[in-house]
């Protein structure tokens, strides 16, 4: 990991450690809730190691914990991970420099937070340093947190500690950056209303998939983009 010895490595190490602290806590909460939803410690850790995209993992466990079908838990989790494909487009120049093996490993670390850290930089070499350092630290933090949570989760009742509100609380922190645009807010409003309004009438887990249809607000370009691209045409 020569990136840890790069000139501006220290800056990315401290920034990543700050996010890493949150990741340990998020991961631990996920670990507790995953085990109490019926997953084993090994399955819970395998999810964090192999899936490594927090919102999808939490979504899957949340739907299963409330009694939803496996299909709807799976569908929601996969839909949520679709955004990583878009982040990957932006990250591909960063990964292109390395060997195939490093690109295959790097792809696993393409998530919201590494994309955010890299996107704040412009110099290609600095971007690579930012990606590999934040990826390594966040991957470690998320998995350490998960293991700790999964071990503790086997011996406590989550709702005694208010941990049944941990998912909505963590989702609130995670959704904030997605509400900066008006289409984001419309999609969120649609998603929330659909999930609550349809709950009594549909099998558990299905309303969440209807919520996802809020993504269709993306079909028409946002007004800001339109003024850039239409070039004065009506």
């Amino acid at each position, binding site marked *: 990991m020569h990136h840890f010895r790069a000139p501006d490595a220290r800056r990315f190490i401290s920034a990543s450690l700050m996010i890493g602290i949150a990741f340990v806590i998020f991961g631990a909460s996920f670990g507790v809730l995953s085990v109490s939803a019926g997953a084993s410690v090994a399955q819970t850790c395998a999810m964090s190691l192999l899936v490594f995209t927090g919102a999808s993992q*939490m979504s899957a466990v949340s739907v299963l914990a409330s009694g939803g079908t496996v299909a709807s838990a799976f569908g929601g989790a996969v839909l949520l*991970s679709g955004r990583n494909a878009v982040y990957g*487009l932006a990250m591909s120049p960063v990964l292109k420099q390395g060997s195939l093996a490093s690109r295959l490993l790097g792809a696993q670390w393409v998530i919201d937070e590494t994309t955010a850290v890299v996107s704040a930089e412009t110099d290609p070499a600095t971007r690579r340093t930012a990606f590999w350092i934040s990826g390594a630290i966040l991957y470690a933090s998320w998995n350490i947190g998960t293991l700790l949570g999964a071990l503790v989760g086997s011996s406590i009742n989550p709702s005694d500690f208010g941990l049944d509100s941990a998912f909505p609380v963590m989702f609130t922190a995670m*959704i904030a950056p*997605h509400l900066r645009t008006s289409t984001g807010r419309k999609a969120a409003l649609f998603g929330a209303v659909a999930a609550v309004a349809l709950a009594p009438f549909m099998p558990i887990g299905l309303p969440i998939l209807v919520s996802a249809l809020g993504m269709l607000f993306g079909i028409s370009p946002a007004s800001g983009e339109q003024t850039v691209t239409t070039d004065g045409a009506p």
Partner: protein
Amino acid sequence: MSWTFVLALAACAYGLKLLGAVIIGQREMPLVVQRCLLLIPAALLAGLIAKDTFTTGQHYAIDARAAGLAVAVLATWRKLPFVVVIVAGVGTTALIRVFV
């Protein structure tokens, strides 16, 4: 939860990362597809928040979780650190359970 579920989810999640970062790379993905994919978290996370706070199974419920969410929304809106958001939100739910 089954191992099939864990491994299938891992394959799909990694496949989507690979699709963007390595397979498509700097070639084109239609803008409309990108916009829709990037809107999924707003729509789905809002749905999950609503479900996890206001329903239990197929029934509506307003309980200590709603208070925890209210505190978390406030803390997020005030741009407090993640750790504070989680501890304040979960702590509120726990305290209400103890005292009410």
